């Protein structure tokens, strides 16, 4: 099993969710986060005083999938979240040792 984690632009969230549902992903964890990449944040101006705002708002998705689906899911997120402009985000996958469904005690693939 793999954990696919993606950090995307907030306004692409609906596109990504639709694409993942169409593919058949049944659940995910979504958080509102903030951070920055190579482009840093942005500048705001108040009465002529410029402030560098380092952290910009993002959405983070966490999805546990079977090994065979990991590349497809990552690819779907990349396609749906891409605007081509700076700050589109990142997707990465990492191994997951085990998963247990709390309600039933089901394990691993059955629990996803």
């Amino acid at each position: 099993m793999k954990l696919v984690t993606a950090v995307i632009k907030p306004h692409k969230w609906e596109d990504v969710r639709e694409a993942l549902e169409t593919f058949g992903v049944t659940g995910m964890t979504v958080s509102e986060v903030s951070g920055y990449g190579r482009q840093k944040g942005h500048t705001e101006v108040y009465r002529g005083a410029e402030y560098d705002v380092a952290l910009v708002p993002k959405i983070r998705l966490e999805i546990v999938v079977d090994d065979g689906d990991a590349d497809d899911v990552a690819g779907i997120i990349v396609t749906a979240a891409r605007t081509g402009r700076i700050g589109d985000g990142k997707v990465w996958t990492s191994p997951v040792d085990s998963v247990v469904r709390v309600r039933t005690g089901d394990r691993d693939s059955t629990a996803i």
Partner: protein
Amino acid sequence: MDGYNAFMLVATLLVLMMTTPALALFYGGMTRSKSVLNMMMMSYAAMAIVGIIWVLWGYSMVFSDEGGIDTFFNSPFANFALDGVGYDGYTFMMFQLTFAVITTALISGAIADRVKFSAWLVFVPIWATLSYFPLAHMVFGCTDGALICSQIGAQDYAGGTAVHINAGVAGLVLALVIGKRVGFGREPMRPHNLTLTMLGAALLWVGWYGFNVGSIVFSDDLDASDQFLAETGLTFANTTLATMAAIIGWLLVEKVLHGKATTLGAASGIVAGLVAITPAAGAVNILGALAIGLVSGALCAWAVGLKFKLNYDDSLDVVGVHLVGGIVGTLMIGLFSVTAGEGDNIAGGAVDGLFYGGGLGSLVDQLLGVLVAVAWSGAATLLIALAIKFTMGWRIDEESEVEGIDFDQHGESAYDLHTSLSSGSGGLAAATRPDPATRTEGARA
């Protein structure tokens, strides 16, 4: 006369609204979220204190016509606690009370986030007594000896000198004496809620009609109803048009200098225009009002950057908006003033300005008026500021300032947005929490 009194009661209410809630919201939104309550409290406290001392001795210093030094102020005792002021004078007295209140409250914008509330409570009545009441006498008292109004002859319709230059200079002096906020110029000190500021600016604009239109003065040689109609119409139109032009002026400068027209710029343009047209509202025509608005909007937009260049922390730009705007409006009367005449042109100023064939005379008078206001306010404020600095002290300690003045000075915080973490886990304070022993007994029973 009944109609006039009803009009003045409404005008008085409008000006009262300018301090609370309008100025409190305007300033409160511009501070950081940890300081908004203290910022608002300075307006509310100014209202309470200045209102009380106004009826005790302020009105007497400004408008009684006996005792004192007529050039600068009159006796504080002649009409102490309104003794000798008939009820028929109460509406005018209350209208003028609101001017004293808001002028003092305006200063608080220069010293946001860092001043002991007790120091503000001490400063307010002394400053009103030593700076506002004398300047108000020189401008609004307008007896034969009054310096700005009579001896110099400078025009000031609703308070460019006594209100805005006075508050602006006081803000500058306090900012210099008290010093900068911890982290000024290094840490971001962004406005925490521009929607509050926008609401406050709009309410200030509405309230300002009471300020300017309510400042109507009757002259004995004109028919009162004709003059009322003409003068209120002119001041209403001028107040509106100058403000509109100032929004444009501010936004144009922003667009050129910083690339974007901002919301705070629009709100600031509103105030800059209102400040500048205040002294000129009854003295200029529409073209003059548009010019005054445009110039003040543009100049104030530029002037708010001075604090970073000159390195003083006038936190919410009392200097950049009120001092600069007040000077622009007061001086430009010397260019655009048109004389009141007969018939359609019954409303207007006392003399013709430079652009209407009046020569340099009016401009020089206006400049002298500005200089007197700057000198008087500067000297009085410096005296009080230093006296407080070397006795009780102005500043809260650095750690409290960083943590937030709201909690340090008032024991409150403005917002409770994270209930599950900040108050949920902490629970009730010990004093109000049910006694654990009692609770246990109750459970056993």
